[in-house]
């Protein structure tokens, strides 16, 4: 079963009348820069690049230490970063950045364009969510959790004699992969057209509770979903005002909408 949620929002014509009377009294007219020359500032042209390579060692595993960093397992880690770009006199430029290669928190991005004409960007980012590495569960399965063979139901854990032999260790957490693409086109100094697309994909598990009347059990629920966002806008800039028309869509899609689990207690309901 698939569950989808859609939400569309439209922002129409945000008009700002920032006339001179509305500006703070402290502000004055912009200085006349026609005779100014940049003598001390150097503008990098051509190709530049840099790279880093490092290594580390963790003497113990820790989900909390690895939460959002990817450094959750003990052992040796090799980490690489790189960045660079090219800028030309004609106004074209292209830059890239690679971060935390070798870790689960790795990211990469590329940006480029021509000054005053257009710009674009591509990005990828993994966000590792490490919730627990000390958990144990009796359940097995993904979105249909079953009790182990020979399970002894009881009103509380004290009577569940198979509990000790049925527990198995589980790591709890999920990865969020984030993709992005954007572009902006400038038509003169009045019109701007923009398009921004982002996609998040998550996969893994997170804890949740399931109740059976007056008793409850904790288990793992699978996460397998994605969210797409699209933002498009067109803008006209006047001397003391602007108008902008925007469109935004967010689409959520999950492949883990259904969820069932056995009742480890001796209540009337065997499954939820």
């Amino acid at each position, binding site marked *: 079963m698939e569950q989808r949620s859609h939400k569309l929002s439209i922002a129409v014509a945000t008009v*700002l009348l920032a006339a001179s009377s509305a500006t*703070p009294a*402290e502000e*004055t007219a*912009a*200085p006349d820069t026609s005779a100014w020359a940049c003598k001390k500032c150097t503008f990098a042209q051509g190709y530049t690049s840099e790279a880093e390579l490092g290594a580390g060692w963790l003497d113990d595993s820790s989900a909390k230490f690895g*939460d*959002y960093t990817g450094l959750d397992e003990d052992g040796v880690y090799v980490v690489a970063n790189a960045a660079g770009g090219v800028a030309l006199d004609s106004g074209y430029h292209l830059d890239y950045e690679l971060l935390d290669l070798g870790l689960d928190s790795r990211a990469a991005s590329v940006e480029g364009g021509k000054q005053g004409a257009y710009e674009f960007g591509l990005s990828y980012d993994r966000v590792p969510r490490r919730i627990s590495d000390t958990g144990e569960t009796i359940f097995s399965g993904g979105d249909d959790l079953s009790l182990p063979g020979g399970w002894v139901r009881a009103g509380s854990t004290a009577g569940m004699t198979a509990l000790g032999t049925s527990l198995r260790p589980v790591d709890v957490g999920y990865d969020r992969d984030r993709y992005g693409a954007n572009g902006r086109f400038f038509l003169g100094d009045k019109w701007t057209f923009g398009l921004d697309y982002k996609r998040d994909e998550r996969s893994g598990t997170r804890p949740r509770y399931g109740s059976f009347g007056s008793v409850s059990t904790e288990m793992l629920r699978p996460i397998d979903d994605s969210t797409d966002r699209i933002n498009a806008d067109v803008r006209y800039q006047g001397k003391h005002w602007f108008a902008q028309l925007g469109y935004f869509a967010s689409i*959520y899609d999950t492949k883990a909408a259904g969820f069932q689990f056995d009742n480890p207690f001796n209540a009337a309901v065997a499954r939820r």
Partner: protein
Amino acid sequence: MIKFGRDSDTPVGVQNSMCLGCHEKTAVANWHMGPHDVNSVSCAACHDSHKAKDAVLTRATQPDVCYTCHVAERSQFQKVYAHPVRQGKLACSDCHAPHGTVAHKQLVRATVNDTCYECHAEKRGPMLWEHQPVTEDCSTCHAPHGSSNPGMVKQRGPLLCQSCHSQQGHPSLGYGPSGLPGNAAPATALALGNCMNCHSQVHGSNHPSGSSLTR
């Protein structure tokens, strides 16, 4: 001569007029609608135009620039449960638009919830059974800049739930040492410890029998 920066004697308006001469037409058209302009924050107080990589435009280093003024948020993000700003996976500008917006708290989207749904769209619904504060304002229960409680909630359960829900008709009793396990007669609700142990679907349920948000 115009001097730029946080400690400059040049009036902020004069400093900013240099930058706004070009940038007001695009990225900062809402500047005059924002509290940074109202509070006379100069562009150069945050931006360094002489560096190839402006710190405030880099996700990992941006928060330290913001923390220069927003010191309370610096401490909040050190809490054990917080968005991954400290780890460099999220920047202030992922939620806030520092150059001004028409939204409350300079959020990037029109409302608090729409901003949260950028990453947490699974909470958006619509659900068959809604939990009213969820659809109203995520920050009713959550502290987005960090909390000492799991899930970044403002209080631990059941105290958080009891800030709205009374005890009438349900054993949502207040925490007390006499009711904890190990005492003569521990209260069932206290032994469970948290309303969300049973009402796990506090963000809403699509189950046909999920009106009490237990499944």
